[in-house]
């Protein structure tokens, strides 16, 4: 499973990354978590507000910090 956290590095984006990593260890799935700060790459996903989370090339949430329960449900699906 490939998870990408999109964001240039403000507080909300860092919080999202932290939540994602926590959710991954809680769900017990094998996944790589990558933080993408480059705007060109972010725009390439069709994402225009940050933070955003992409799982296996599917955009899951845009423009806000996701809840832990949402993250867990996406990881376990």
């Amino acid at each position, binding site marked *: 499973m490939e998870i990408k956290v999109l964001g240039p590095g403000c507080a909300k984006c860092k919080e999202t990354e932290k939540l994602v990593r926590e959710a991954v260890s809680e769900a017990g799935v094998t996944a790589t978590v990558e933080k993408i700060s480059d705007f060109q790459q972010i725009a390439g996903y069709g994402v225009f507000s*940050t933070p955003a989370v992409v799982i296996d090339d599917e*955009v899951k949430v845009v423009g806000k910090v996701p809840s832990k329960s949402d993250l867990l449900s996406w990881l376990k699906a």
Partner: protein
Amino acid sequence: MEPIGCKSCCAKKTVDEGPVTGKGKLARYLLLLAPSLIVWWLVYGMLPGFSRLLTYQVFGVAQGSHLGDSLEFLFYDTPKVLLLLTLVVFGVGIIRTFFTPERTRKVLAGKRESAGNVMAALLGIVTPFCSCSAVPLFIGFVTAGVPMGVTFSFLISAPMVNEIALVLLYGLLGWKVAALYLGTGLFVAILAGWVLGKLNLEPYVEDWVMKIRTDPSVVPVDEQTWTDRIEAGLRAVKDIVGKVWIYVVVGIAVGAGIHGYVPEGFMASIMGKGAWWSVPAAVLVGIPMYSNAAGIVPVVEALLGKGAALGTVLAFMMSVIALSLPEMVILRKVLKPRLILVFAGVVGLGILLVGYLFNAVIA
């Protein structure tokens, strides 16, 4: 300009609920709403008496003394502003759940200038906008076919016309000043955006931006219930007021000090109407400064109270909030230096205009 911390990002957390618990939660929220508002109203009304009681009875300070004036100001304004802030942030938090950058983008795509500028400036107030999203948002708007000038109107109004500034201005200076700030903020956003649109600055956007082609429908659509919206409002209060209250208290303390100890008319010589150079100076001084609205408004209020001219002070406040070095450094990723300078120049001129206008018109 607020520091690059996403003050108004939606940190919404949805909770999966069955229909029964969902309705139960909503009923509970609504039941609590009316009594909460009544309590709020009662406490708000008691504040003037409370602050006087605290200063003169409990602390035994002499009436009319510098310390008495300062303390009364402090005890009255701090809870008053915090109460107002809580109410407005909650309300705006709920309003914001109805708007997303994606929807705004769709609405503005293909709109002509002028009408587009006005809509963009208005939408800038209610669309949740995070300063860190400025670049992705710019790219998103431009690639969706939103004219550049219209995009700029949005980018100017979003940080500048913010609810915290408005609440504080209303709480400390009355509804007229707050309305003035709102009106002139929109005016600058619309005018500057329109002018920038006319200058045909597309060649000064970084080349890679224009080459982006993506499918906008890839982003998931967000359905929210009223429970979600109320929770978003509560979360906004926790996040924003929780983060900003200390600045408010410090700002009011500084204001209280100026209020009690600086002689009347002291600021008139430096920032008064007579000093014509004070408006451009105020705008220039504001550029390298960045502060959140919460901290600067109480200071603004105190300055006004000591004879500073309204136009000069408004220009200073707008410059601090709307023109910020950190934001311009970030925009460098998508805009070439010339465009950034033109942007700062046009917005700066708009603010200057507002400053002079006010000094000339307000008696």
